[in-house]
């Protein structure tokens, strides 16, 4: 009798905060790999681990919700500490699309350059250098008949004397498995633009994508091809990279799903001599990730 009363009291105490946080989702992805890189010793390395919280709350405005999200790096390889933040933003979402302010993903990556960032190992994202941005005000349109657009303004008082330091516009169009995307990133101070165009095609177990980037600041035009083929719980992936100035390389990877939320991979990354002169390195990487 007493026991059940205590249980009831405990349940009551727990229920209150749970109701208050009903919409918050705690999520994460821990990714660790072992890397054998040319000219380096064997290394256990973190592979973009993150833990985050996200959710939405009612605004009282019909059909409009306030959203929030925070996401932090976790150094799984050494120290196990929470590292720098990845994302932190608030915003409003509804039939009009989504407007958010804070540190968030750039549409340059999510609409365009992410199309070829499909591998897990060292060969992935070889030409991508824009991922997330701070000081951002972003608007992403709803999907309209396969079309979607986005605009981001980056305003940082500490940067370089402009009200808006950089703009990022992006658009993509999807139909029947095909997706094409294009994005422009302009730096108001330096006048150095980055342009990216990608195309992807997905059909059942097959996925292929191509990406082209023109980076004015670095004065390079780079392109990349990536593809994957899935069978059972196994996926074979490959990418080919042209770094410009005769540098090129390729990656080959196999992934094995272990249930729905974890997987292992083995990746081979090979670059030619010209790419090695740019600081790229051959590597074999083997890793595991668990999502929750």
């Amino acid at each position, binding site marked *: 009798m007493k026991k059940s009363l205590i249980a009831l009291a405990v349940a009551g105490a727990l229920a209150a905060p749970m109701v208050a946080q009903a919409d918050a989702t705690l999520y994460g992805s821990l990714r660790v790999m072992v890397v054998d890189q040319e000219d380096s010793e064997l290394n256990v390395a973190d592979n973009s681990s993150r833990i985050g919280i996200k959710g939405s709350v009612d605004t009282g405005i019909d059909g409009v919700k306030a959203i929030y999200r925070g996401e932090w790096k976790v150094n799984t390889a050494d120290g196990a500490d929470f590292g720098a933040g990845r994302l932190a933003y608030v915003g409003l979402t509804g039939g009009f699309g989504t407007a958010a302010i804070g540190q968030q993903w750039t549409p340059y990556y999510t609409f365009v350059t992410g199309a070829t960032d499909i591998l897990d190992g060292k060969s992935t994202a070889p030409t991508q250098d824009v991922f997330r941005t701070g000081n951002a005000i972003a608007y992403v349109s709803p999907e309209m008949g396969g079309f979607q657009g986005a605009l981001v303004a980056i305003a940082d008082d500490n940067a370089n004397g402009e009200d808006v330091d950089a703009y990022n516009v992006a658009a993509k169009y999807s139909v029947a498995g095909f997706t094409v995307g294009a994005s422009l990133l302009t730096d108001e101070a330096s006048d150095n633009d980055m342009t990216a165009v990608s195309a992807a095609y997905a059909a059942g177990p097959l996925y292929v994508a191509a990406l082209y980037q023109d980076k004015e600041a670095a004065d390079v035009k780079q392109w990349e091809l990536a593809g994957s083929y899935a*069978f059972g719980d*196994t996926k074979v992936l490959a990418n080919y990279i042209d770094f410009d100035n005769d540098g090129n390389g390729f990656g080959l990877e*196999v992934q094995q799903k272990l249930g729905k939320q974890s997987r292992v991979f*083995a990746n081979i990354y090979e670059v030619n001599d010209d790419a090695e002169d740019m600081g790229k390195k051959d590597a074999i990487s*083997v890793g595991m990730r668990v999502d929750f």
Partner: protein
Amino acid sequence: MFAFTYKRFFSAVAMVGVISLQPASADSDVDPLEGFNRSVYSFNKAVDRVVYKPLAQAYTSVTPDLVEKGVHNFFSNIGDVTTLLNSVLQLKGEASAISLSRIMFNTTFGLGGVLDVATPMGLREQTEDFGQTLGYWGAPSGPYVVLPLLGPSNVRDTVGLAVDINTDVWGREAKPTDSKNVGTGLRLLDRRVQLFPAERLVSGDEYVFVRDAYMQRREFLVQDGRFDQQFDESDF
């Protein structure tokens, strides 16, 4: 459509039955070199009886099972490279993907191939060699040939074997030569040990049994277990 497939299935079963029951009917077509083959066969048999089999038996009784399994897995992983090469040459997309995945997982997570982690992952071992590739592209098997020391083969597979030996990763890459030879020795012992269970199946004229088993097995492998031939029902 269903009835058609059904009929073909039974024809295939009947066909297999006929081949097994009448192995001697096509001797002269399959085995014009029978006289030569039989003498090589008995030579091989003698070498096996005196040297090869006793060594293999000693190997399997002395070596702990765990080590034996490791040796087997290690060389299977190296053999998977040959399989991958030939799956690609036969334009088999999924089989190539499976072999590639097996090699990459077994070489890394499987500690250089000693553990076969790919099989429990659902990646079953494939077997392809250059003889099968030639067969896939339409080369006939040619007459049955027994090769000295190397054993049962046919003209096509002898060519295939030469290519396989020359492209073998262990043969090309293993260094230094001493270790390579020790490894090759272990590999041959392992190969012989793998044949122990099959020996118990032999019945009747051993030469004919081995020949028919070999030729049928190769045909089966080239066709990947499918029987694409059209059968004339009046034959049955």
